[in-house]
């Protein structure tokens, strides 16, 4: 007898006591388990539901890392943001008519879902990443009165794509949904499953995993954070190869996203990876043959240069919100035209950048670079066989000394340029820590990096503000030179300029204190302990 009761929405908003899922891989075994459950309880089928869901995720797994999965199903048509572990629904929304190529948080209808996505995904787009089909069979376990005391959901999931795959990956399991006031009975059912040899898992086996796998991805397989794990005792040449290969992999993985212009972070991460490699080439001399250092230093710089214009425009377009926040409402109108103009400029810049990146010559550079980095390459350089640890520590000592020297020379009247130089030095130190950090004691390194973060943030913001100011000033000059420029635009830019100048001065005022925190005996002692050597950095 099938009882036509509304299964499926049960347990909504109610905590499901964990472990809630009992994975069973063999269908025959699952049937035997069900037969045994039937002995203990009266089992009433409550129907089955099948649905296909499309998973959406940012390229760098921001939702998954926050313990969430975003899906869109067609019947019923809705977006669902649910937790990966117990699959509780965090937010949902009806899809609107819009069907953009890639979804930004602002493309979602206003509401809780959009708010969550804004906070978690920020400027990253969510991209379709595989589909899965899930069938759920609802079974009510009843007592002698015919009252449901617990629900057993038999879930079967499989990846929907790709079709050509002979054996689709799939998973099946039982989920127990206790009813309020009947926890004892739910415990009994759980004990029954355990007795039958079912394995309880505490979640994290969301069917979205299957969809991701079918789409060729695995949660956490990309992160913009660089950390190369080097084994102890590795030689300098091998260490550098690994460091460069890691950066090259990162750069190449971002290329498709740049080609399709999915969001601005593909280009950003691509550029960071290139810059990291270029820094490594210039900081760690004498490990690769000189001609290799020279050629790829030049070639990578050329690729990066070709992306400069597009990145600058991306940055300015992303600054819109910040700019508007600086200006009173009546001055916003002037910005509209400016940003429309920027959009047009960006389209041109994108075309040009893609042309460059897709050139056979560019592809050849990356191919050659990889060919050189892959093992069994020549090692005829003076420092190739030096232990990487000693080399890294020496470079770190040198860089830290330099930072202290430069920073101590900066006073209230020192020109801005000195701060910019110092920022680059700090950045280089950070790169070196990323490269060789795995050879140093982890806890010590982390707390050392922490000491730097504040100074780095101040210098970073100071630099951003200087760049913005220069850019706004140029735009203003260009606007004034051109006849027929709206006074609105000039007023907006003028207002921005004075605000940016004020913010820049405020940021600079923070420098002295932040630097003196870094130039403290405790930090110097830690640096000495970490980097070795005899230098006390006094």
């Amino acid at each position, binding site marked *: 007898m099938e*009882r*036509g*009761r*509304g299964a*499926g*929405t*049960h347990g*909504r908003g109610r905590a499901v006591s964990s472990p809630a899922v009992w994975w069973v891989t063999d269908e025959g075994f699952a049937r035997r388990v069900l037969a045994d459950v039937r002995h203990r309880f009266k089992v009433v089928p409550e129907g089955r539901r099948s649905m296909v869901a499309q998973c959406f995720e940012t390229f760098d797994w921001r939702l998954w890392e926050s313990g969430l999965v975003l899906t869109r199903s067609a019947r019923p048509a809705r977006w669902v943001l649910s937790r990966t572990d117990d699959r509780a629904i965090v937010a949902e929304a009806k899809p609107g008519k819009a069907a953009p190529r890639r979804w930004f948080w602002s493309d979602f209808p206003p509401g809780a879902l959009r708010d969550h996505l804004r906070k978690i995904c920020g400027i990253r787009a969510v991209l379709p990443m595989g589909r899965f089909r899930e069938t759920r069979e609802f079974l*009510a376990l009843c007592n002698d*009165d*015919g*009252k*449901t005391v617990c629900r057993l959901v038999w879930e079967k999931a499989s990846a929907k794509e790709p079709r050509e795959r002979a054996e689709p990956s799939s998973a099946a399991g039982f989920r127990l949904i206790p*009813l*309020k*006031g*009947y926890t004892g009975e739910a415990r009994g059912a759980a004990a029954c499953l355990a007795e039958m040899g079912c394995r309880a898992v505490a979640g994290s086996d969301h069917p979205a995993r299957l969809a991701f796998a079918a789409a060729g991805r695995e949660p956490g397989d990309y992160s913009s954070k660089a950390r190369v794990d080097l084994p102890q005792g590795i030689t300098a040449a091998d260490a550098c190869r690994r460091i460069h290969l890691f950066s090259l992999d990162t750069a190449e993985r971002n290329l498709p996203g740049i080609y399709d212009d999915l969001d601005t972070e593909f280009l950003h991460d691509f550029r960071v990876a290139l810059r990291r490699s270029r820094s490594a080439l210039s900081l760690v001399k004498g490990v690769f043959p000189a001609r290799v250092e020279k050629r790829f230093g030049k070639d990578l710089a050329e690729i990066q240069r070709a992306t400069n214009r597009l990145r600058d425009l991306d940055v300015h377009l992303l600054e819109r919100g910040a700019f508007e926040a600086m200006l009173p409402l009546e001055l916003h109108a002037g910005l509209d035209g400016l940003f429309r103009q920027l959009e047009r400029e960006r389209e041109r810049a994108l075309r040009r950048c893609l042309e460059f990146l897709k050139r056979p010559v560019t592809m050849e550079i990356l191919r050659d670079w990889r060919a050189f980095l892959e093992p069994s390459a020549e090692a005829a350089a003076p420092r190739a066989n030096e232990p990487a640890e000693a080399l890294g520590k020496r470079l770190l000592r040198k860089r830290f000394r330099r930072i202290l020297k430069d920073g101590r020379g900066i006073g209230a009247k020192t020109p801005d340029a000195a701060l910019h130089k110092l920022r680059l030095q700090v950045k280089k130190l950070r790169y070196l820590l990323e490269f060789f950090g795995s050879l140093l004691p982890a806890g010590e390194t982390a707390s050392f990096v922490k000491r730097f973060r504040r100074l780095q943030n101040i210098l970073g913001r100071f630099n951003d503000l200087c760049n913005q100011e220069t850019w706004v000033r140029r735009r203003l000059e260009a606007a004034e030179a051109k006849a027929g420029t709206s006074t609105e635009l000039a007023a907006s830019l003028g207002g921005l300029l004075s605000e940016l100048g004020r913010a820049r001065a405020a940021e600079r005022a923070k420098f002295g204190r932040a630097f003196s925190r870094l130039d403290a005996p405790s930090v110097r002692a830690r640096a000495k302990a970490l980097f070795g050597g005899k230098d006390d950095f006094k």
Partner: protein
Amino acid sequence: MKVIALYNIKGGVGKTAAAVNLAYLAAAEGRRTLLCDLDPQAAATFYLRVRAGKRHGAKRLIRGGKALDRQIRESDFPALDLLPAKLGFRNLDLKLDARKRSRKRLGESLRTLADAYDLVVIDAPPNITLLSENIIAAADLLLCPVIPTTLSLRTWEQLDRFLRKEKLPRDGLRAFFSMAERRKKLHSATIHETLDSDPRFFSSVIPMSAAVERMGPERAPLFVYDRRSAAARAFQALWTEIRHQLY
């Protein structure tokens, strides 16, 4: 959170059937609903296949919060929970008496569940006691099922007088005709006359129906086994009226 109490001084007027079916309809719309069976006969509890508790629950009912929450049972239907009747509710009047502000205790206790429920439907015992006064004070809508007969109408007027005399709130006092038999001339005439003269009556009339009587053997709300019956349609119409009144 809103509170509806089904109440009549007279028993056997279709009070429990109305409480169960209205609670079911509210829950089916997605409102988190708690049906409180405060009638020691425990008919609502029986309809939802829950066992009435043996241990006396009066103390917990008055204390509210976690103690009360632990008594609640999830029904077989989405969003509908039940506070089962307890034999101990017989002693409730004594417990209430022992406390100060004894008329407001139940309302205060129910308010502790305001985060968990959108609606509470109370199936009240058919008598006038301190518990009834608590129920009346707690209800946003005091809903009185009335059989269209002279005797039943008299109890409705008695209730009205009682509220006035005891200075209990009368704003939420409403009624509807229950167990009506259209073929009986007296029923028809009473319904017409009353609906014309007393605006506190909802216009939906619940018919006397075999389908409703089957709630006993089926042990389920009417809508589970016969959603097309005239009675089911009447309950649906009544719920629509009530919803407009409440929200």
